[in-house]
């Protein structure tokens, strides 16, 4: 069933190098074949049947993603807080930075492998990718604009009329088409070409070094129950024992009001950690070292602490410095340079 969608959507970017060494001329030949489920990935969660990714829809979505008119004062785009070179996060910012230098309360998460996501936001609340952009557009600390105004701004521009027509068959710019186009772009932000993926798919002669392999074994023992392969998240919400932040962010509880959800946040993927720091829902850890220190020594017994971090009365995960080195080596194999350099995903 899903294979049908895969067939529609495959992007091949062929780089043909003419006189490679002396001329530095790069010719790009693109054949847009749409969304492709990587061989080593599970079935997608997104309902592609209701929004098949097309070249025109994707390109419109990309234009919208990099469109400053989505913000009230026409200053910031989705790409401002989701920067491709940082694997679509906002590098160097603990919490996201909106219009008029307003600061949010949470760290900007990556736009990556969203087709497999069932819940969005660090604290949940949104369960359909198509409905997601309404939140950053309307949030006071982010784009602080109304959806109605955004659509009116777009309607006044001829370039969008033709793009909407190409993508959806008519010049009409509606909430549904606008959001579906954005989804098409975001769905195409697939990171699946890290060294890890190539090893798993047995591509070429890709193989782990001894240290990486030892790190992988340790990872499977100590980390994978939450950061499940191959997406490196179980898509769940868990309390990992952080000291509550100064604003006492209650995480998932805010959206569900269930006491058992207090201090639970979405389990982030471990892909592209090289580019996505700082870490945690509020960006409190600037380095991976600090993250390891947290899990090894600083896990707090807060309400709803995940049982996996509190086994046999011992909090945290035991990781010695040798193990840490090996785990770091493995985590490094999850960085996907092709993803952050994929020109298809860049502002044109």
């Amino acid at each position, binding site marked *: 069933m899903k294979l049908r969608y895969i067939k529609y959507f495959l992007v091949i970017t062929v780089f043909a190098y003419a006189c490679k060494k002396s001329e530095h001329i790069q010719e790009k030949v693109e054949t847009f074949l749409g969304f492709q489920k990587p061989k080593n990935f599970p079935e997608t969660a997104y*309902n592609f049947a*209701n929004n098949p990714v097309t070249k025109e829809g994707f390109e419109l979505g990309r234009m919208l993603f990099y469109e400053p008119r989505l913000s009230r004062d026409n200053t910031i785009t989705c790409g401002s807080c989701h920067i491709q070179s940082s694997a679509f996060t906002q590098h160097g910012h603990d919490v996201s930075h909106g219009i008029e230098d307003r600061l949010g309360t949470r760290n900007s998460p990556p736009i990556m492998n969203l087709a497999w996501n*069932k*819940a969005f*936001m660090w604290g949940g*609340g*949104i*369960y*359909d990718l*198509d*409905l997601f952009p*309404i*939140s950053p*557009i*309307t*949030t006071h600390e982010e784009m602080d604009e*109304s*959806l*109605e*105004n*955004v*659509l009116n701004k777009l309607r006044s521009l001829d370039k969008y009329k033709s793009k909407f027509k190409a993508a959806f068959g008519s010049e009409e710019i*509606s*909430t*549904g*088409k606008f*959001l*579906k186009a954005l989804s098409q772009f975001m769905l195409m932000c697939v990171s699946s070409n890290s060294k890890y993926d190539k090893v798993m798919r047995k591509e070429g002669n890709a193989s782990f070094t001894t240290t990486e392999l030892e790190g992988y074994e340790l990872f499977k023992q100590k980390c994978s129950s939450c950061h499940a392969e191959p997406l490196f998240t179980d898509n769940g919400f868990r309390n990992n024992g952080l000291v509550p932040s100064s604003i006492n962010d209650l995480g998932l509880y*805010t*959206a*569900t*009001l*269930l006491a058992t*959800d207090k201090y639970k946040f979405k389990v982030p993927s471990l892909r592209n950690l090289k580019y996505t720091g700082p870490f945690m829902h509020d960006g409190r850890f600037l380095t991976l070292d600090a993250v390891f220190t947290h899990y090894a020594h600083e896990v707090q017994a807060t309400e709803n602490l995940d049982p996996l971090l509190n086994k046999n009365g011992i909090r945290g995960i035991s990781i010695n410095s040798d193990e840490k080195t090996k785990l770091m080596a493995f985590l490094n194999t999850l960085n996907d340079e092709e993803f952050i350099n994929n020109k298809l995903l860049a502002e044109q």
Partner: protein
Amino acid sequence: MKKILTIITITSILFTACKKDNATPDFDEQNLASLSVEFDNIVGGRTLTFDNTAVPYTNATGEKFTISSIQYFISNIQLTTTDGKQFTVPQDSSYFLIKGADRASRFAKVKVPEGDYSKLTFVLGVDSLRSTMPVDKRTGVLDPALGGHDGGGMYWGWNSGYIFFKFEGNSEVITNDQFGDPTGKKQFKYHIGGFGGYSAPTINNIRTITVDLTNAGIAKVRKDRQSNIHLFVDLMKVFNGTTTFSIKTYPTVMFGEFSTVISKNFKDLFTHDHTEN
């Protein structure tokens, strides 16, 4: 052509005159005629006037207040005939946003089979099925872009779902600190929503309202006339329906536990005043 039309019109008027006291037509789901349900907002014994600071309203707790905005969703209209036959208005034609500031919006206009109806049932809010529908099904009053997020918007972006009932106003009893309105505008805001959640069960403020039409007049729905069920919607009852609460204690209620207390008062808002047949 015009002549023929005139003849037809005159003939049908004549027939109408003859038919008016005829017996109830057979219940046929294909034989549809217009019916409107009028949501006439009132406040206690008074009509609804916005921001009437000169003569504010007084609730059961003795607090004086004015109203600046009222909007709510009415959906899933169902009618029952005097002999117990039920008709549910097709979902796609059964969502209405009643806006206090827009008099024209007070009518929910539907098509139902000809018949005599003694019971009206509807949902105050948006059912969970529609609340989780794909974005392209969210058109008309359900378009999340409608009204903007500061103004009349009835959609929560951060916690996907509709605001079912949005009621705002002012009261001098509201303090200027974080327990009241820190902006000093002395505003109360009741944004009641919550359809039960996508995956985990969350608060559910969908309320089904049933109104018996027997005493104040059944709706005689016929093709040749416009039947209108005139309901009073007493906004005062928000404060003293099943549970009485004080504006001072609860000046702002949005997505939180107390919203369920307020939504339980909703059924007390609606009374059937009369039916125009």
